[in-house]
């Protein structure tokens, strides 16, 4: 099956959110990958966006519930579980 390539960078830009959310269809993902292989500027931009998203996620996922909240849950559900 033939996939038409993305015509230009603006077409690629429209895929940014789905790309970051990993919600592109396999066909669109392939077309975007193809564009990123030939367009250095888009590759740089999309690369930065994904890097930033992962950096933010890694930093924010370090947040932990306070110990007394965990203790409350254990009491509520019985220590022995």
């Amino acid at each position, binding site marked *: 099956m033939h996939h038409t390539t993305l015509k230009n960078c603006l077409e690629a830009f429209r895929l940014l959110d789905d790309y*970051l959310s990993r919600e592109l269809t396999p066909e669109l993902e392939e077309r975007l990958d193809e564009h990123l292989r030939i367009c250095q500027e888009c590759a740089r931009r999309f690369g930065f966006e994904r890097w930033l998203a992962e950096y933010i996620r890694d930093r924010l996922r370090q947040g932990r519930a306070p110990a007394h909240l965990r203790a409350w849950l254990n009491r509520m559900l019985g220590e022995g*579980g």
Partner: protein
Amino acid sequence: MPEADSSARARFKELAVPHLDALYRSALRMTRNEADAEDLVQDTLLRAFQFFHQFQSGSNFRAWVFKILSNTFINQYRRRSRQPETVSYDGGEDFYLYSQLVENRDSEWGDPEKLVLNKLQYEDILAAIDRLPDDYRIAVTLSDVEGFSYKEIAEIVGCPIGTVRSRLNRGRRLLQRALWGHLQEAA
């Protein structure tokens, strides 16, 4: 304790405990306040346990309990603590932060990634997210921090998938503007 009750508690505990950190993190982003976040998580878990008999074994417990978190926040906390929104959406542009970093690059600043790593503190990211309007902040938190899919977020917050996509798009753009503001202050 009756046998059925005891086994329900054990099953609930097994399912809920692994999500406690994520529930608290998300509650903290929703309420932007530690005391309210703890209350919100406690209310959520009490409610989830109360309605645990309605949870279908084998389905997605994480999405189910986050839906209760979201509903509890909207019904009890948002109403109570509603504040004027601090930002308005003016259209903005994609790749905003990247474009600013590249346009303002000089020998001291170096690569965009390096600059973010060196100048953007954990607190700056939290502050930038906390400035987003409720709906955008919740969509960005559920997607970009907790990794829920469009479909799961739509079910959790009770809106169409198209609305989730639009909130994420606007939320991410606003977030980049706020991050750029923090980077300029740090420069």
